[in-house]
């Protein structure tokens, strides 16, 4: 009796379920069933399979090992119509002025479609201004001045763009800030690295 009853109940439930399912599918024919988890991908035969994939479009980044030496970016030579790699150095005592001016130069180069290879900071130089005491021979520290330097390295500057860029930079140069445009050489690049006196001593011993 109970078995028959159970069967009836089960079948009734099954039919109810199938009706519910049918209703569900009728109402939202192209969407996921509600109880499916959110992160299942579309089935491979669905036309939208793989929609949203983007990692295959981004170029693969080479994983940097810590032992790798920093490679120098290629120094472009000059051609008939363009200057090669140039260093625009901004230096001064007031750090806010120097930084803002170097940022202005960088943004201006973006605007004028001039390629900027690198933009880096050289170490700050501290100068102590010593004054002689009025009555006596001892010198005492009057002021401590710090010279800040920012470098914007341009990869190539067109000869037609050069006078325009320089004119704008010079007209907007703030007071107390020094602007210097020079050719970029390997010596400039090597000067940024710290010296290693022990290594050099050992090498000297080896070659001696």
């Amino acid at each position, binding site marked *: 009796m109970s078995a028959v009853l159970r069967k009836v109940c089960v079948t009734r439930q099954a039919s109810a379920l199938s009706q519910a399912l049918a209703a569900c599918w009728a109402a939202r024919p192209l969407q996921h069933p509600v109880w499916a988890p959110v992160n299942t991908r579309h089935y491979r035969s669905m036309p939208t399979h793989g929609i949203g994939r983007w990692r295959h479009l981004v170029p693969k980044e080479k994983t940097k090992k810590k032992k790798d030496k920093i490679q120098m970016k290629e120094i472009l030579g000059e051609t008939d119509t363009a200057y090669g790699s140039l260093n625009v150095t901004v230096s001064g005592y007031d750090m806010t002025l120097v930084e803002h001016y170097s940022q202005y130069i960088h943004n201006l180069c973006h605007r004028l479609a001039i390629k900027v290879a690198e933009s880096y900071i050289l170490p700050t130089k501290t100068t102590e201004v010593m004054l002689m005491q009025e009555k006596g021979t001892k010198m005492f520290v009057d002021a401590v001045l710090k010279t800040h330097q920012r470098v914007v390295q341009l990869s190539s500057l067109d*000869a037609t763009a*050069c*006078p*325009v860029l*320089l004119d704008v930079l010079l*007209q907007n*140069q703030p*007071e*107390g800030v020094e602007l210097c445009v020079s050719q970029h050489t390997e010596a400039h690049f090597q000067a940024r690295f710290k010296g290693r006196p022990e290594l050099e001593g050992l090498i000297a011993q080896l070659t001696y």
Partner: protein
Amino acid sequence: MAAPCRRMASVTLLYFRSCFRRTAVGSAGVRQLSTTSVCGVTLQTKSRTEKPPSPWTLMAAVCLQRLPVISADCSPVEQRFRQMLQQMELEKSLVSEHELRLLEDAERLSRKQADDYDSDDEGSHGDQDIVLAQDLEDSWEQKLQTFQPGLRVNADADEDLTSLERCLADPLVLVAEQQVGGDKLWLLPQTQWQEGETLRQTAERALNSLPAGLKATFLGNAPCGVYKYKLPKAARTESTVGTKVFFFKAILSDSGAPAAPSASLLWAKKSELQRYLKPAYMMKVDRFVLAL
């Protein structure tokens, strides 16, 4: 003559190492410039087939600019904004070392003058008792009184158009009165191009031919503007249709001894250029003279 254009392309460009320093002290109110050229200009003349000479006479002119010496004054809106920002920064800032020292000294002084003062309770501040921070401030204040800043606006010099010290906040352009064709005209100093030299060398020659000994740094080998002038139909011949003037930009470096002001040379702001240059010429010059 298509020669100059091709020669421009084949000339290797000057490498330049130029330092532009902007200091408040200028001997003639002029920014200090120093240039050292690393490699000179080398001219590669290619053997070219004979071409019929072009009917245009070529000239090169120099747009010599004296850059502004001081920064321009802020407009009223900028001044108010600047004041507001300064106040905000002051309110958000922390007390500096010097100000801390001032507070400590004041507190110590008040403790010393109290009735129940015990000097043994003090820590070892021997040095700081001798020179108080307030004394330092007073001595700095005294030094500031002896400093005289230079005048920002010199009304007399502003009126004199030939003086180099006029309008220190604006860039000035050199205008010269030269003989062109039969009349004397006000224009940027120019001279005719000769065979065998680059247009930039022509511009340098134009600058050197002026009576005042002005030293300038040219900003590049490429011209910044061009003006085409067609002769009136009556004066046109087969060989000359008109002139083309190419403009080169240069910045005035430290001019040597101030030469005697001559009536044919003027330093004009961009707004004043209109008074001296012809309208068609002015339209072309307007495009490259920057007055920021």
